C-alpha cells in the first residue's frame, strides 16, 4: 500500500473517532437535561395547580433578569472564542477569553444572590409556599451549576500558567468545559422564558 493510501485510510479512521471525554460529557448533559426538565416541570405544574398562591410579578424584576440573560449569553460567546483560540493554539487569547467568561459568570452569580436576597427580604423563602420551594430549588440548582462552571474555568486559567498544557489534550479539555458552560446557558434560556417572561403575559 502506498504512503498516500495509508494516510488516507488513517484520515478515514480518524474521522470516525469520537473522544471518550467528549462523548461522556454529552451523555452527562443529556442526563442533566432530564434533571432540569423535572425541576422546571415541577415548578410549572405547581404554578398551574396553585395560581393564586403567589403573584411573582410583584417581586420579579424583568430588567435585572434580562440583564443576567444577556450576561450569560455573552459569556457563552466568549467561551466559544476561548475554545476556538485553543484549537488554534493561541494560549494568550484563550486566557483573555476565559477571564471574560469567569468575570461574566461572577456577575451572573452576583445578580442571582442580589435577587434571592431581595426575595427573602420581601418574605419569599424556601418554605413560604410551593412557589418559593420550586423557584429556589430550580434557580438555585442552576446557580450551583454556574458556580461549578466558574470554579472549573478558574482552575483551567491557573493551569494554563503552569506550562503543562498539551495542545491536543487541552483543546479537548477546554472544549468539554465549554460544552458544560454552554449547557448552563441554554438551561437559563428556558428558565428565563418559562419562569420569568410567561408570568408577565
Amino acid at each position, binding site marked *: 500500500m502506498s504512503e498516500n493510501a495509508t494516510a488516507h485510510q488513517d484520515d478515514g479512521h480518524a474521522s470516525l473517532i*469520537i473522544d471518550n471525554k*467528549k*462523548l461522556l460529557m*454529552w*451523555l452527562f*448533559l*443529556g*442526563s*442533566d*437535561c*432530564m434533571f*432540569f*426538565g*423535572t425541576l*422546571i*416541570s415541577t415548578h*410549572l*405544574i405547581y404554578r*398551574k*395547580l396553585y395560581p393564586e398562591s403567589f403573584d411573582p410579578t410583584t417581586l420579579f424584576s*424583568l*430588567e435585572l433578569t*434580562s440583564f443576567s*440573560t*444577556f450576561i450569560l*449569553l*455573552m459569556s*457563552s*460567546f466568549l*467561551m*466559544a*472564542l476561548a*475554545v*476556538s483560540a485553543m*484549537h*488554534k*493554539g493561541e*494560549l494568550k487569547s484563550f486566557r483573555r477569553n476565559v477571564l471574560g467568561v469567569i468575570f461574566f459568570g461572577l456577575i451572573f452569580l452576583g445578580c442571582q444572590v442580589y435577587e434571592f436576597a431581595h426575595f427573602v427580604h420581601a418574605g419569599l423563602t424556601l418554605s413560604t409556599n410551593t412557589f418559593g420551594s420550586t423557584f429556589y430549588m430550580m434557580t438555585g440548582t442552576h446557580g450551583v451549576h454556574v458556580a461549578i462552571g466558574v470554579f472549573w474555568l478558574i482552575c483551567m486559567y491557573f493551569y494554563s500558567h503552569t*506550562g*503543562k*498544557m498539551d*495542545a*491536543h489534550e487541552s*483543546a479537548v479539555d477546554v*472544549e468539554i468545559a*465549554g*460544552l458544560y458552560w*454552554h*449547557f448552563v*446557558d*441554554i438551561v437559563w*434560556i*428556558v428558565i*428565563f*422564558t*418559562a419562569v420569568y*417572561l*410567561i408570568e*408577565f*403575559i
Partner: protein
Amino acid sequence: MSEADYHPLPIAAESNKNSETEKYHTFVNLALGLAAITGVELVLVYLPFNEIFIFSVLLSLSLFKFVAVIAWFMHLLYDKLLLTLAFGTGMAIATGTFIALGSLISRSNVDMDAITSF
C-alpha cells in the same frame, strides 16, 4: 514546558486556522442575534397583544436561542451524529416528561383537598 514551547496540533495548521476564523464571524453574528432576541423578548411581554400570540412568539424565540447555542456555540452542527443522539435522547425524555406531567396533572384531576391537608 514553557509558553514558547507551546505548539498546536500539526493538523491545526493553516486550514484549521481559516475554519476557526470563519467560525469567529459566525459566533459574533450569533452573539449579536441572541442579544437582540433577548431585547425583543423583554419588550414583547409589555406590548398589548393577544396572550396566545405573545406566548407563541416567546416560545419560538426561546426555541431558536436554545437550538442556536447548541448548534453553533456547542459545535453540534460540526460534530458527529452520535453526539447529537446522546444529547437528543436526554432532551427527548425531558420534553416527554414535561408534556406528560403537564397534561396529566391539572386542577380537575388532582384532589386539591388531599394535597392541601398536609
